[in-house]
């Protein structure tokens, strides 16, 4: 179990003032150096950062604004990758869709929505699941059995079915997709945090905090929570990838984001009918962007699990 990084840094500064130790080994530094051991994971992280930057700065780096109807020319529709537009002012590196929209710009904007929905819903689910899981572990008894029964019930239905049900009730929309994803995902966090917290709860430092008559809130949030974070971070990383994939699936089925705010899944759905007539690029490139995003997040998460798992410590 890694103690919180700042506490570790403080003790290390006091314990190792000797000039020989130029770089005191703090838990955070150790974590970074262990993470960097895998070139694959570092490469994946770099690609992910690049993807995230593309998504964040989409309006500035896109060759055109794909949702400004004034700049679209229907005559440029379904051009092959590398074609020039009608008045020869720009190149469509990844081709255009049926509206004459530059696919590259569309992908940047789509990534924005996919990442925002994926990261946002994973974060909300993280908060909800963490709060409920901690409550279940700390209070035990009836609270625990009610929350965990709910988790079991939730996990016994496949994610797609639960999401489908919620979207059938609520209808399309970004907010509704986020709600559906949160409902699907919170249980994973709750179960993970409860498992860790049950182990941590029995350790001496919690007992010491109790003996000091600290408030429940303080014990749970200042003592218990920081020590439950490592496995939660791993689950969180994987859940972002899952959320992005599920959002894309729902949007592909026409139940997710509205047509005015297309995510990668909706771009792929739009390109589907053209794929059968050989115009592969309209759905192929958004799909590649989706696939690369999901795979790099998984690679990072997979390596994080190895680094943060105390059982695998050498």
């Amino acid at each position, binding site marked *: 179990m890694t103690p919180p990084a700042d506490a570790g840094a403080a003790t290390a500064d006091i314990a190792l003032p000797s000039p020989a130790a130029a770089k005191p080994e703090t838990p955070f530094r150790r974590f970074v150096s262990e993470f960097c051991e895998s070139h694959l994971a570092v490469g994946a992280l770099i690609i992910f950062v690049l993807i995230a930057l593309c998504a964040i700065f989409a309006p500035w780096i896109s060759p055109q604004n794909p949702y400004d109807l004034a700049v679209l020319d229907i005559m440029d529709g379904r051009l092959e990758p590398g074609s020039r537009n009608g008045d020869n002012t720009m190149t469509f590196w990844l081709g255009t869709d049926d509206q004459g929209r530059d696919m590259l710009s569309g992908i940047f904007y789509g990534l924005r929505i996919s990442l925002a929905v994926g990261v946002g819903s994973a974060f909300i689910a993280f908060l909800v699941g963490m709060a409920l899981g901690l409550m279940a572990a700390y209070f035990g008894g009836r609270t625990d059995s009610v929350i965990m029964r709910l988790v079991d019930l939730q996990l016994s239905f496949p994610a797609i079915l639960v999401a489908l049900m919620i979207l059938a009730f609520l209808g399309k929309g970004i907010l509704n997709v986020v709600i559906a994803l949160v409902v699907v995902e919170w249980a994973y966090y709750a179960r993970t945090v409860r498992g860790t917290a049950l182990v941590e709860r029995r350790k001496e430092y919690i007992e010491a905090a109790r003996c000091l008559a600290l408030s429940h809130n303080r014990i749970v949030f200042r003592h218990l929570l920081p020590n439950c974070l490592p496995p939660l971070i791993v689950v969180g990383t994987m859940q972002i990838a899952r959320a992005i994939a599920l959002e894309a699936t729902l949007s592909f089925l026409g139940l997710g984001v509205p047509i005015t705010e297309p995510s990668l899944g909706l771009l792929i759905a739009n390109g589907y009918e053209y794929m059968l007539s050989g115009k*592969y690029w309209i759905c192929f490139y958004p799909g590649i962007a989706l696939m690369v995003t999901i795979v790099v997040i998984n690679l990072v998460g997979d390596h994080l699990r190895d680094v943060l798992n105390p059982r695998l410590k050498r």
Partner: protein
Amino acid sequence: MTAYLIRRLLQASLVVVAMSLLVFIGVYAIGDPVEILISPEADQIERERAIQALGLDKPLWLQYLIFVANALQGDLGKSFVYAEPALKLITARMPATLELAIAALVLAIILGIPLGLFAGLKPENPVSKTIMAGSILGFSLPTFWVGLMLIMIFAVELKWLPSTGRGETATLFGVAWSFLTWNGLRHMFLPALNLSLFKISLVIRLTRSGVRETILMDYVKFARAKGLSPTRVVGVHVLKNILIPVVTVTGLELGGTIAFSVVTESVFAWPGMGKLIIDSINVLDRPVIVAYLMMVTLMFIIINLLVDLGYSALDPRVRLASQGG
């Protein structure tokens, strides 16, 4: 055991009631079916008549009670769109989904077990590493995207297999099946493969870890020391012991496969239950949505119940724990 059985049954029926309430309220309380079903040009009298015919003028709780009373008689309402009983529509589409799901499970077993065995027996081999990397992709890539790629490669570029639809069917026991004709099988291969990718990855992982554990056991060492051929050791002694968890998990996945066929059916335009529910959600055909959700949740509750009962029958600890607590 009887007490446990009764309590578990009660719990399950409670969940059924809660789900039916949730589904019904969710589907009927949000949005307005009148808007969608009655043409805007209809005059007031026509509107009234249509609302009455659909039973939408009654209070919601009465609609629910009527729904439950009818549901108990096997009547889950009439589709707004097809004007046919929702249950009949769904059961008519069910064989297509079932045959796809079963084909996917069969593929998962006949592809997953050999690949997993290989990866488990030769963990350092580059082929094994490729298999394991592939299984990670099978877990993480969205099904619909893999399906599109399968269509693009095998149907559009190579033109080996048809892209969409169910193909010719032959009738057996009064139901049309695709797997009985060559054309139908050709249509079924890509969607079944697509649907089974997740399951193949799962079986590979289970088999591999099973092999890695079993191979260290004393009885395997003994079988080797006895001078049995490696084929016999792996094929009989190892395989028999890892098959139990693999088959259990694969069986349990049948429900999930049926739920996930929603995606595959939409990609490959396979006319099953999943395609029906997506189309119904898009046109807000509420009775069909409710009927589908009720049937699938019921299916899951029954599967979970059977699993729990099965475990408690096999493992006395589960039974005793539930009696004590």
